[in-house]
């Protein structure tokens, strides 16, 4: 379960200053600005990764069932089953799937540190290198989820709150990304999901995403 606070992302206030100068801002009418974004351009940084839909459009269209729903609610990709029709990517309303158009490793035409033994040492050993012609996507760091679950299982206990995070949640210095168990009502992410500011991206499409965002609230008077 993901929770993203757009307001904690860094964004430049250059546009706001400019907007104030040329008069397109400053009316203070928040809802007008929301309904006509082109009249009042503002920049908000909103990262969009796979929304791990519970009713995923990508899953139904794959002819070989290479993408399916996992037990923890993730939308999972079986790379070695994928034949590369790219139908899933087309049918994704968030357009978050990425295709391996070429062979990117051991290929002199691409320099992604995957052409020699030393370079390959930067790669995550827990994740397979995908071949040409397969689709890929955010797995919500399934390798970390699995490792945590297995450790807890070996120790005969439940997975504790905050025991693991996705790589993006780990990396974000402002805590804009929170990962957790939505079924655990005590967890931070479950509380955030209940928040009034919580919304799902393109909710009306009916994809029932597992990722929640929080509406960015701006104080226009002081900005």
């Amino acid at each position: 379960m993901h929770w993203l606070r757009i307001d904690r992302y860094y964004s430049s206030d250059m546009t706001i200053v400019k907007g104030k100068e040329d008069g397109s801002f400053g009316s203070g009418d928040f809802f007008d600005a929301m309904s006509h974004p082109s009249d009042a351009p503002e920049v908000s940084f909103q990262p969009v990764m796979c929304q791990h839909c519970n009713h995923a459009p990508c899953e139904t269209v794959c002819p070989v069932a290479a993408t399916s729903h996992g037990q923890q609610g993730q939308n999972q990709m079986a790379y070695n089953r994928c034949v590369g029709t790219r139908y899933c990517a087309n049918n994704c309303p968030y357009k978050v799937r990425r295709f391996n158009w070429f062979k990117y490793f051991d290929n002199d035409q691409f320099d992604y540190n995957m052409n020699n033994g030393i370079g390959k040492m930067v790669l995550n050993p827990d994740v397979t290198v995908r071949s040409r012609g397969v689709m890929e996507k955010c797995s919500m760091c399934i390798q970390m989820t699995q490792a945590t679950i297995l450790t807890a299982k070996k120790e005969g206990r439940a997975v504790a709150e905050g025991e693991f995070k996705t790589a993006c949640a780990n990396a974000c210095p402002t805590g804009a990304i929170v990962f957790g168990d939505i079924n655990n009502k005590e967890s931070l992410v479950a509380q955030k999901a209940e928040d009034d500011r919580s919304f799902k991206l393109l909710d009306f499409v009916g994809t029932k995403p597992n990722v929640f965002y929080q509406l960015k609230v701006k104080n226009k008077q002081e900005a």
Partner: protein
Amino acid sequence: MAHYEAPIREPLILGDKTYHDISNDIAAPVEGKANKWWWGVFTLALICFLWGVGAIIYTIGTGIGVWGLNNKINWAWDITNFVWWVGIGHAGTLISAVLLLFRQKWRMGINRSAEAMTIFAVVQAGLFPLIHMGRVWNGYWVMPIPNQFGSLWTNFNSPLLWDVFAISTYLSVSLVFWYTGLLPDFAMIRDRATKPFQKKIYSLLSFGWTGRAKDWQRFEEVSLVLAGLATPLVLSVHTIVSFDFATSVIPGWHSTVYPPYFVAGAVFSGFAMVQTLLIVMRKVSNLEAYITRLHIENMNKVILVTGGIVMVAYLSEFFIGWYSGSLYEDFTYLSIGAATGPYWWAFWALILCNGVFPQLLWFKKLRTNFTVSFIMSIIINIGMWFERFDIIVINLSRGHLPSSWTQFEPTFVDVGIFIGTIGFFFVLFLLYARTFPVVAQAEVKSILKSSGEYYKKEHH
């Protein structure tokens, strides 16, 4: 056998042909030698075909990245060409199956070549779902084949899987139907053949047809049964192709009007391709007596009707998109956003080629003119290609999130593969025109005394 037909109806066979003349005329291209025009066009088609083969090998060897696709527009020319070729195939089945059930005698002059076109077009179509796969060498995974991989099975929810069954059923039924019709005609060529090798080949091809009354009785029965089987396919195949789009959640694709509209569009484009081929063929193979002005006019009428259905669908898509009040619908392939956006040329090519120009066929003078019909058929072929391009590329280029709005530009590989399939199609068709009886002469003979020009005059 020959039913009476009113003399006022236009004849379907011109001149004072006898049964023997018909045999001579139909066997002539098979028995004669190819002229330099045939060799010229064949060489050109072969070069295009080989270019396409090269482009396909390059794609499979290097990766789909050699096409102009990107992570937002994951299909473009590949699926455009697929739908275009499948659509073209529909006319052959409609002419041979549906018109047989409706006892339309005019189908007899054109059904053989129309069905050949169907089969050759479906062969081209079938190429694209294969080569558009990132890992074509694993393509057989889309077939529900019992396997040792574990519990892996195909996903029966996927419209792409329905396509696999729809297209393969269509190809096999069309092939059987076409071949059944060919049996008496192959036997005719066999009986006339003087060279032993040719005789041997056509003996094998004609499955030992002897022309007994029982043969004919079974032939008629099988034709009727196969026509009954093929008729639903005319409707089902393009319906299922349209499901690739209609069942999705993408604005512009997610549309309930797609199945009937795709079927009408398929017949529309298919008849255009039949016109393109037959208007040339009747001249080159001296078939003016069998493929007449009336045939061309009748096909133009079908084009008018199906083109009208397509135009109504365009208008309703445009209107409903606007009427929905949804911002996302403002950028679908039939919207103000498309008409004025970066793909304005594709939008207007669609409207002009499919909607405006075909209306000229309302004039009898124009729809009975061979040159006009030929030019019109080319225009419609282009328009219908753009229809599929617009549906796929414009809709994918303007998704829900403006951050993923993008453009598609074809590479030389995209172009090469398309040109290659056109080359392949003409290679097959030109070989067919020299080795197959291109008119169903056994059927045409059955209407000679009722619909032949000479006999109609005698009745008077």
